[in-house]
């Protein structure tokens, strides 16, 4: 009970791991590209949470700086991902990731 009421770094890490798992499940099982992209955002956020938690644990700010870089990366990823999605939708008129198989022979 004591450990439940005292929030340590581990608590944040477990939360991050749970989020990460949710993201992984989303990426691996969903068919809708939009939701897959959102699951990737979940994964990135789980990473961010860990980075910031470690930053607090060590008392330095490197973790926070890296979290900002990850957010930048997420923005770039979302822009390109959604661009691909639009191009894909225009060609196939679907958003199902199963049908992204043009390279398969």
């Amino acid at each position, binding site marked *: 009970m004591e450990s439940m009421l005292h929030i340590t770094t581990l608590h944040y890490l477990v939360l991050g791991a749970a989020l990460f798992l949710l993201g992984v499940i989303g990426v691996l099982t969903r068919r809708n590209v939009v939701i897959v992209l959102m699951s990737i955002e979940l994964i990135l956020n789980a990473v961010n949470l860990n980075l910031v938690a470690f930053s607090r644990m060590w008392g330095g700010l490197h973790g926070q700086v890296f979290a900002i870089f990850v957010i930048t990366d997420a923005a770039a990823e979302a822009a390109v991902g959604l661009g691909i999605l639009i191009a894909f*939708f*225009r060609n196939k008129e679907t958003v199902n990731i199963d049908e992204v198989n043009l390279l398969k022979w």
Partner: protein
Amino acid sequence: MTDSNTSLSHLDLETPEKPFLDANELVINMGPQHPATHGVLRVILRLDGEKVLGLECVIGYLHRGVEKIGEHRTYTMFNPYVDRMDYVAAVSNGLGYCETVERLLNVEAPPRAQHVRVILTELNRIASHQLWLGTHALDIGAITPLFYTFRDREEILKIYEKYCGARLTTHAFRIGGLQYETYTGFEKEVKNFLTFFRPKIDEYEELLTTNRIWVERTKNVGTISAEDCIALGVTGPVLRASGVKWDLRKAQPYANYKNFDFEIPTGQNGDTYDRYLVRMAEMRQSVRIIQQAVDALPEGPIMAKVPKVMKPPAGEVYHSIEAPKGELGYFIVSDGSTQPYRLRVRPPSFVNLQALDVMCRGQLVADVVAVIGTLDIVLGEVDR
């Protein structure tokens, strides 16, 4: 104009443009209850995002069968009905109808009546353009001009009210001339109105003509070429803004317009801004005509000799006048009885509305509103 000019070959109106995302064509039902369709016009818009791929007008929500009514009324009885077509320009409608029947009867209204008719019709043109300006600006988002134009239109309506007791559906003219002599002080009031109104046009222009947003919203919007105008039968300020100097007051003078000195303002680009400028200039020209007519108002009778029971000789006549919105024509076939055998109206709004599709293709939704405003349609006239 030659026949080669009267085709729309370069405009493929049958096949729609392909949308950006194929599955995503948006069909929007604009109207019949919509703040910017000036009544009960229904426009079915096919959109690609905001871009208009094509549109279709559905009319008839205000159809009252005016033409059919005309076949069941005597010539005199039908006169008030025409006021209800273009209720914004009731006097012009009346002038067109009276002159058509006068041609059929082969009589001509006396000079004084002609002068008064010109004065009232031109006042009506100003009133119609004022209403157009106010609502058009309101559609584009400028809410203030509406109140200014309505304030000034009120003065014209007051003159009407004093002259014939009605403000909107005036029934001002009779076949053969006028029923009432002008009231005392009529000339003075008209002159007062002219001096009052001249600075007001400048006021409207000050609000809009050089307004950056107004220019951006109207320049190169709803452009229509002179060829397309002619092919679609578009008349009035819309035609003149495309650069065609065609005004029935000069081209086929009626009433006694040939006695007055005025110009036909034209535009070059045929876009919404040019139509705006043309109508503003027309208001100034109307002021000029009224000034001349009032200054030279002759004395004399106001009614020609017309029989009490009108039985025009059998035959047909088409007569058209330049209404504020374009060519307003009446085609009457008489079989020698007291009622027309067939009566057909060529309303300017109805014909001009055809150009909406051509003008809106490839533009944005916001432009559709601007174009409907600039066509200056009155649904009472479109549906009759």
